[in-house]
């Protein structure tokens, strides 16, 4: 495991999260929210582009961001399961706005802590990408927080659904803070951040938001995980099929 692998994993998190969030454009409760989610997805896509370009530049021969996004297969993606899952809690509601809000809160709170720490990385490129991204994810966190407060402390129905969405997302939180995939020498050299050290500040922020939203921290067992090793959930294939089919059907196409 080297700097390339580290950048690739972080890039995959951002790329797959962005691809999934794009599904909400024209499907959010209001057109204003369509734009808000679209902006957030584009921010994440921008982070993915920087990270994948950097990861590809460290390979020999060099691969571009497009090579990495469109021409890798499922087992070569190293994103966490949290970002690849579909948006439903119940089968009859395959796209639940509560799930979007819950996932955005979890992901953006984690990314705020990660990018904040990574902005002082000894790797200049990672530090620069993180310094730019931290302002973006701080806004994502603000957006998610406002919605969690309104839905959690809203009507009985919104409260129930917000809690159900949190409960559904929570098994996938632990994987974000798993240290097993990060090479300790990268941490010692100050290149990478040890994920488990982000957990306490993450919990502090989440507990504060949930308390204000009259919600409780889910008490559920962690899912198995495996995304960092390229082992994914059933959902991942659908994400890649949608993201990659055009490039693979028409290789080299431009417009």
């Amino acid at each position: 495991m080297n700097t390339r692998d580290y950048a690739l994993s972080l890039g995959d998190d951002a790329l797959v999260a962005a691809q999934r969030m794009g599904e909400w454009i024209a499907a959010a409760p209001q057109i204003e929210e369509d734009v808000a989610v679209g902006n957030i997805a584009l921010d994440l896509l921008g982070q993915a582009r920087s990270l994948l370009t950097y990861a590809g530049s460290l390979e020999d021969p060099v691969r571009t961001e497009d090579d990495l996004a469109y021409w890798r297969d499922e087992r070569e993606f190293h994103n966490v399961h949290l970002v690849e899952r579909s948006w439903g809690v119940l089968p009859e509601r395959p796209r639940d706005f509560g799930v979007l809000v819950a996932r955005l809160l979890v992901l953006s709170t984690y990314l705020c802590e990660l990018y904040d720490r990574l902005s002082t990385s000894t790797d200049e490129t990672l530090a620069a990408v993180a310094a730019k991204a931290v302002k973006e994810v701080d806004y994502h966190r603000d957006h998610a927080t406002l919605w969690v407060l309104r839905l959690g402390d809203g009507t009985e129905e919104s409260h129930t659904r917000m809690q159900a969405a949190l409960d559904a997302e929570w098994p996938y939180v632990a994987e974000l803070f798993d240290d097993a995939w990060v090479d300790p020498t990268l941490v010692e050299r100050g290149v990478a951040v040890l994920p488990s050290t982000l957990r306490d500040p993450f919990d502090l922020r989440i507990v504060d938001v949930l308390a204000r939203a009259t919600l409780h921290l889910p008490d559920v067992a962690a899912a198995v995980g495996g995304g960092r090793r390229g082992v994914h959930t059933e959902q991942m294939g659908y994400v890649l099929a949608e993201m990659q089919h055009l490039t693979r059907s028409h290789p080299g196409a431009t417009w």
Partner: protein
Amino acid sequence: MSDRRSWPLFEVFVRSRRGLSHVHVGSLHAPDAEMALRNARDLYTRRQEGVSLWVVEASQITASSPEEKDSFFDPAGDKIYRHPTFYDIPEGVEHL
């Protein structure tokens, strides 16, 4: 959110840079003012259009009506003495 159409309308004002006034740029729907401000940020300042935002619930604005147009604005039409056009401007005065 049972009736999503019931979200109130907000009018959005953007100040494009320091020293200028806030200018009306459009409107949007939001559940409350705090969310309206975020929506305004996403809809009206995503291409660096501004440094400051106001949102005002549209129902809070008292506006002149088209029927009042004649009595409101026409009387000013022939009062040319209200314009400072009868003064000689001394040479060298630039910002007048």
